[in-house]
């Protein structure tokens, strides 16, 4: 077992952490899959409103890489396809037919003896979208051979779904999923865990177990890779969400397609809880737990998640909802405030802040300004990359320099904390994405 300790970073002390027990909630009647959750794809729909689909049927494919198809995450009827500007598909909403789901037979023909067999099997069940790659954080190209595969079971983001709790009942599926993932690469299969969680994995030699310690972003795939096996130019690394391991494991070991997912709802504006639910879950089933009227519902965590409406859906790669208050407050001379309970800062700029868990709101807490490099980003960015220089090279559109400075190792989520702490209120994630886009479309 390898141990890595991250020093630079920050655990945001946000209130509304769910306690480790499941609460009851109504079953989901509608689920959705949104092509917007996937970077750099051109979706082409294979279904239309009113079509009957069953679990795992292809819903759409990527015109750029037609092999990759997206599975239906429920059996039932396509109840609505929501379009946005320029007819971009925002949501494919499926009305769940539970009876139909129960009667689906498992796939008995499981032959996963070789890499090619496994790839065929994944292709057959349209499971490629579960695999994403670095760089670019996009769905993999199945013909690539990744130099290694990383799975993080140590999500460190604020109010993250604690996988050591929510995956506790799925030990055998996790093992089955991991043993098969190893077949997809000639390199290591890195699995990051925190403390003694998932200690049973140390019995299996196909897993290169990594024990991570330290504050967020220590559980991020990019940060772990940067420490154990840095990504170089022209290399590809695959990754799978830790929360998806049971879904993969069930398919690989028993041929069962089951998209159930234990999700976590948290945040200052909601009664926090863990819920046995499913992928693409709709938030309005949990709206009774809201504590106030004016809220922002976020699919995913508060740093990198996506804002959804009250009847919005969980993103494909997300396993938690976070809810914070939409605040429009304008405190009088707020920048002179002495501190106390109403302020939170990683700088020692307020008296007695950060002691208790804090009720964050959607306020930006300042206006946008030019970069003033007071070493804020560097304090919370643990990679050996000069993030300030990288951001400048991106703004200057200098692709060579971006590559030299290590843009391939970064993803939006790795720099989210930089945006959080930035006194100039820059969106560092957007800058990194802009750089990745520039390179992606240049090639």
């Amino acid at each position, binding site marked *: 077992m390898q141990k890595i300790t991250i020093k630079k970073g920050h655990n945001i002390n946000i209130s509304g952490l769910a306690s480790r027990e499941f609460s009851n909630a109504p079953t989901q009647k509608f689920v959705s899959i949104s092509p917007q959750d996937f970077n750099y794809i051109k979706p082409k729909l294979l279904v239309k409103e009113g079509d009957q689909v069953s679990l795992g049927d292809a819903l759409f494919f990527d015109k750029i890489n037609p092999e990759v198809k997206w599975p239906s995450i429920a059996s039932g009827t396509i109840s609505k396809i929501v379009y946005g500007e320029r007819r971009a598909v925002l949501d494919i909403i499926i009305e769940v037919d539970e009876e139909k789901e129960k009667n689906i037979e498992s796939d008995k023909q499981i032959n996963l003896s070789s890499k090619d067999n496994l790839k065929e099997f994944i292709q057959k069940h349209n499971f490629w979208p579960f695999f994403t790659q670095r760089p670019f954080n996009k769905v993999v190209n199945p013909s690539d051979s990744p130099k290694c595969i990383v799975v993080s079971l140590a999500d460190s983001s604020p109010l993250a779904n604690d996988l050591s709790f929510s995956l506790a009942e799925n030990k055998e599926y996790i093992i089955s999923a991991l043993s098969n993932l190893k077949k997809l690469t000639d390199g290591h299969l890195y699995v990051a865990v925190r403390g003694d969680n998932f200690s049973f994995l140390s019995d299996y030699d196909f897993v290169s177990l990594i024990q991570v310690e330290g504050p967020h972003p220590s559980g991020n795939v990019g940060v772990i890779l940067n420490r154990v096996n840095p990504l170089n*130019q022209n290399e590809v690394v695959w990754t799978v969400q830790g929360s998806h391991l049971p879904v993969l494991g069930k398919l690989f070991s028993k041929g069962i397609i089951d998209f159930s997912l234990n999700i976590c709802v948290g945040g200052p504006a909601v009664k926090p809880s863990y819920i046995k639910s499913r992928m693409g879950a709709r938030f309005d089933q949990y709206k009774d737990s809201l504590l106030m009227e004016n809220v922002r519902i976020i699919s995913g965590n508060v740093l990198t998640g996506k804002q959804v409406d009250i009847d919005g859906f969980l993103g494909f790669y997300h396993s938690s909802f976070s809810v914070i208050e939409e605040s429009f407050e304008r405190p009088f001379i707020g920048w002179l405030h002495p501190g106390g309970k109403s302020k939170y800062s990683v700088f020692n700029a307020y008296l007695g802040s950060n002691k208790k868990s804090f009720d964050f709101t959607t306020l930006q807490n300042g*206006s946008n300004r030019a970069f003033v490099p007071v*070493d804020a980003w560097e304090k919370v960015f643990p990679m050996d990359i000069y993030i300030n220089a990288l951001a400048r090279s991106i703004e200057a559109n200098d692709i060579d320099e971006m590559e030299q400075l290590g843009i391939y190792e970064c993803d939006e989520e790795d720099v989210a904390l930089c945006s959080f702490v930035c*006194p100039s209120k820059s969106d560092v994630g957007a800058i990194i994405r802009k750089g990745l886009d520039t390179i992606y479309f240049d090639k």
Partner: protein
Amino acid sequence: MNFLRKIFEETGKLVEKGKPLSWAYPVWEAADTIFFSTNKQTSKGPHIRDNMDIKRTMFFVVIALIPCYIFGAYNIGYLNALAMEIERGIVGNTIFGFTYVIPILIATFVAGAICELTFAIIRKHEVNEGFLVSCALIPLTMPPDVPLWQVFIGTSFGIIIGKEIFGGVGTNIFNPALTSRAFMYFAFPTKISGDKVWAVGPDGYSGATALAIPANPVEYDTASNLFAANTQFDYSTVNMFWGLIPGSIGETNKLLILFGAFFLIYCGIASWRIMVSSVLGLVFTALLFNLLNYFTVDGILQSGGFPNAMLTITPLQHILIGSFLFGTVFMATEPVTSSHTNTGRWIYGFLIGVLTVIIRSINPAYPEGVFLAILIMNMFAPLIDYYVVQANIKMRLARNA
């Protein structure tokens, strides 16, 4: 509060886009967000943000400077009372001093605000709070009896040439406050070059600042002896630390400057690396020069045919005389114009210390070398960063090979 809020909301309508007064939006926005924190929302991830913003960052630097202002005012009154041979008491001295400090402060802020607002309106960007810090720093680098029109011109030059022509805060190469200091140093040398006494006295009152004494000695001796021989002012090490000596307004009391340094370091605003390394650079070079002094004919190093007493200044005296500490703590650490990498900050600071002693000692025509040293290093900071970043690039390329 509601009344004030209403005024802003009503006036805000006048400066909306498309209205005849829309050019004044940056001015309105600046006033509005000073009185009421912005209610700007996050639009996407990260949905939550830290409570620190540039307003508070800049304001904290100003807070760190306030003790220097108060002591500076007191010191003006104290030295004046000394020269006039009268008693005025602490409060009286401070009030007397403020009658000199406040006009300089007003001249600076008027000049700074005019430049900043004009550029904000022309460029249609929001008013950046950085100018508050520049304007708060400039009076502290001035002698108390500096003519106000010189302050006005100096400040305008610093803000425009030092900052705005490069694109404003975040893109400037030189520290605006130091740019105006340098401009005044060369434009009005009779008032500000540092060899005349910097105290308010009766007409015809004269004397020498601590740096001018070893720079232009009547008869060669070591710096310590020269300081001790000066009867006009108490240039003992202890008194130079407490700051009851002539100098520019903010530079004399070292304790308050150190207090400001710890405050800024604690808040995470200024880089301790720059401060520590520039002191190291200064000590290193001063010791080197002390050493050099022993390798000379008759124990006296000849400089242009004359013995150079500046070489005998001990490291501690170098730290205490002139504005080295003030420059290091408040000027060298300016985040935009200093190095942006931690390795770079060590090099940048060290070289500031080295250059300060070189400029002070080798060419005593410029007894005060700190601001020149910092400006020179401002110029080289991007180069230092370039090489630091290149090392990172080489590491990455080597890994790839």
